[in-house]
C-alpha cells in the first residue's frame, strides 16, 4: 500500500513534466503540422539557462525560471522565423530533417558551452514533508502544483483571450484563419514562444530531481511524441491526459515489472498503439 501510493505520486510527478513538454509539442503540431524534433533541445536548454542564471548570477530560483522561459521562448521564435517559415511550402519530409538539424546543432552547442558532464541543480525547496504516511519532497509537490497552474493558465489563455482564440482558429483551419484577417505569421511565432516557454518550465521544474546534461532531452522528446500520438496530435487535453497516463504506466511498470526496461514501456506502448491505430488513438484534431 505504502509503495503503491508512493509510486502513484511519482507517476503524477513524472506525468506533470511529460504533459508540459507534450503540450508545447502538440501546440506546434496543431498550428504548423510539423513534428518538432528540436523540442527536446529546447527542453534541455531550458534547464541549462535556469542552472546558469542560478549559479553564475546567483539569481533566485523563480527569477531564473522566468529568464529561462523568455530565452527559450525567443529561441523558439527564432527557429520558426529562420527555419520553419522558409520551409512553409516544401514537402513534410524537409521540416522533419530541418528540425533534426536544429536538434543536433543545439545539442552540440550545449556540450560546447556547458560541457558534457552531468550536473545537479540545487533547489530552495529540498525539505521533506509527510502527508498521510507518504514522504514527499517539496520540489515534487512544486512540480505537480506548478504544472497544474500552468495548464489552467494555458487553458484560460486559449479559451478566453483573443490571442488564444487566434491560435485555435489557425489550428482548425489555416486558410480560414488567414481569410478572416488573422496574421498567421504572428500566430506561428506566438505558438513557438509558448511552446518554448512550456519546455523551459518543464525542464526547470524537473531539473532538481533529475540531472542536467546535453542529452537530457532525448528520451523526454521521444516520450512526448508517444504522448501526443496517444492523445491525438494537436489536441491539448489529449496531451495532458496522455502525459499522466504515461507517467503512471512508467512508475508502476518500473516498480512491478522491471526498472531496467522502464524506458522501453513508452515505446512498446507506442508501437502497439500505432500498430492497431495507425493515426493515433484520438485522431480527430481540435481543442
Amino acid at each position: 500500500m505504502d509503495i503503491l501510493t508512493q509510486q502513484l505520486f511519482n507517476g503524477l510527478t513524472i506525468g506533470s513534466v511529460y504533459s508540459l513538454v507534450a503540450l508545447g509539442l502538440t501546440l506546434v503540431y496543431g498550428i504548423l503540422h510539423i513534428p518538432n524534433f528540436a523540442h527536446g533541445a529546447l527542453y534541455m536548454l531550458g534547464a541549462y539557462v535556469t542552472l546558469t542564471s542560478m549559479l553564475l548570477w546567483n539569481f533566485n530560483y523563480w527569477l531564473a525560471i522566468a529568464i529561462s522561459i523568455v530565452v527559450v521562448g525567443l529561441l523558439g521564435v527564432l527557429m520558426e522565423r529562420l527555419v520553419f517559415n522558409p520551409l512553409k511550402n516544401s514537402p513534410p519530409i524537409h521540416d522533419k530533417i530541418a528540425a533534426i538539424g536544429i536538434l543536433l546543432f543545439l545539442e552540440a552547442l550545449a556540450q560546447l558551452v556547458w560541457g558534457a558532464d552531468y550536473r545537479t541543480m540545487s533547489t530552495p525547496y529540498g525539505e521533506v514533508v509527510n502527508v498521510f504516511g507518504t514522504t514527499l519532497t517539496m520540489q515534487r509537490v512544486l512540480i505537480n502544483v506548478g504544472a497544474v497552474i500552468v495548464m489552467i493558465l494555458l487553458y484560460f489563455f486559449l479559451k478566453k483571450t483573443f490571442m488564444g482564440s487566434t491560435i485555435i482558429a489557425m489550428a482548425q483551419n489555416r486558410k480560414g484563419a488567414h481569410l478572416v484577417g488573422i496574421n498567421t505569421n504572428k500566430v506561428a511565432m506566438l505558438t513557438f514562444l509558448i511552446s518554448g516557454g512550456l519546455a523551459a518550465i518543464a525542464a526547470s521544474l524537473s531539473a532538481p530531481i533529475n540531472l542536467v546534461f546535453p542529452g537530457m532531452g532525448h528520451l523526454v522528446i521521444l516520450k512526448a511524441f508517444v504522448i501526443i500520438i496517444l492523445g491525438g496530435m494537436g489536441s491539448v487535453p489529449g496531451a495532458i491526459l496522455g502525459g499522466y497516463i504515461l507517467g503512471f504506466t512508467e512508475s508502476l511498470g518500473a516498480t512491478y515489472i522491471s526498472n531496467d526496461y522502464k524506458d522501453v514501456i513508452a515505446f512498446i506502448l507506442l508501437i502497439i498503439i500505432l500498430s492497431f491505430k495507425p493515426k493515433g488513438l484520438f485522431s480527430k484534431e481540435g481543442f
Partner: protein
Amino acid sequence: MPAMTKKSIALIVLIIGAMVIPFIIQNEYWLHILTLSFIWSIAVYGLNILAGYTGYLSLAHAGFFAIGAYALGLLTVKAGLNYWVALILACIITSGIGLLIGLVALRTREHFFAIYTLCVGYVIYLVIDKWDSLTGGVRGLIGIPAPSNIGPISFQSAISQYYLILFFLLATVVVMYRIVHSLTGRTFIAIRNSEELAQTIGISTMKNKLTVFVLSTFFAGLAGALYASFIRFIGPDIGYTTIIFDLLTYLLVGGIGTLAGPVVGTILIVSVSQSLQFLQDYRMLIFGPMLTLIIIFYPRGIVGMVSEWKMKWFNKKKKAPAETWKSTYSDSEDVREDKVKEG
C-alpha cells in the same frame, strides 16, 4: 543521344578512377576512410530508395544496420559459419525483420511513420544493448573474421577489402539504377508524389511500399554486415540514433532522391569529418546547421544543385522554354504543397 554517351563515358572514367585509386593514394589510412565511406554509401542508398524515392522517412535504419552487423558477427563468431554463408544469411535476416516491421510500420504515414520508426530504432538499440547473453551488451562483439578466401583470392589486405567493398557498392548502384528507371521505380515515385493518386490509378501502394521497405532494409543489412567484417569489432553504438542522423546528413548533402547523391554526400562528409577530427563531438555544430540550410536552400543537395546549374546553362544555350526542363521532383513539390499544408 550525345548527352547519354557523355554520361556513360564519365561513368566509366569514374569507375576506372575508383579502381586505380589504391595505387595512387598508397596511404592505408585514406584507403581505410574511403572503404568505410563506401560501406556507409550502401546503407545510404538503402535509405535513399525509401526516403528519397518513396517519401517515407525511416529513422530505424541505424537499427537495421546494426541487425545486419550483429547477424554477421554472431553467425561467424558464435555459430562458426563460413563468412559468405553468414553474409547472405545476415542480409536475409535483416530483410526478414524488415518485412515484419514494415508490415505494421507502413500502415502509418508521414509523421507517424517517422516517429514510429524512430521508436522502433530505439527499441532495436535497447535490445542489442540489454541482451547481454547474445550480443555481449556494451562490451560488444570482438574477433569477427575478415571475408574468407574465394578460391585463390584472399581478402586480408586493405587493398583487397577495398575492391571487395567497391564491388558491392557498384552492384548496389547498378541495382538502384535498374530499379529507379523501371516501372517499379516509377511506381515508387508515384507513391511519393501522391499516395491517393497512385491508388486511384490502380497501384497497390501497400505491396509497393513493403517491397521498397524490405529492399531498403536489405541494403542497410548488407552495409552493416560489411561494416562488421571490415572493422572486425561491433558495439551497440552502431544502432544508436546518432547513426541515423549521420546517414541522413550524408543523404541530404549528396542529394535526396538522386542516384549519385548518396555516394557523393557520404564520401564528402566522411572525408571532411576525418579532417575535422579535432572537433570530435562538436562536429554537429557545423553539420547541424548545414543540414538545415541545405534543406532550405538546396533540397536536393549537391547533386541537385549541379544538375540545376547544368539545366540553366543548357537552357541558355538552347534558349528553350524553361518549363520543359523542370525536373520531376520540382513538379512533385507543387503537387505535395497543397496536399500537405492543408493538413
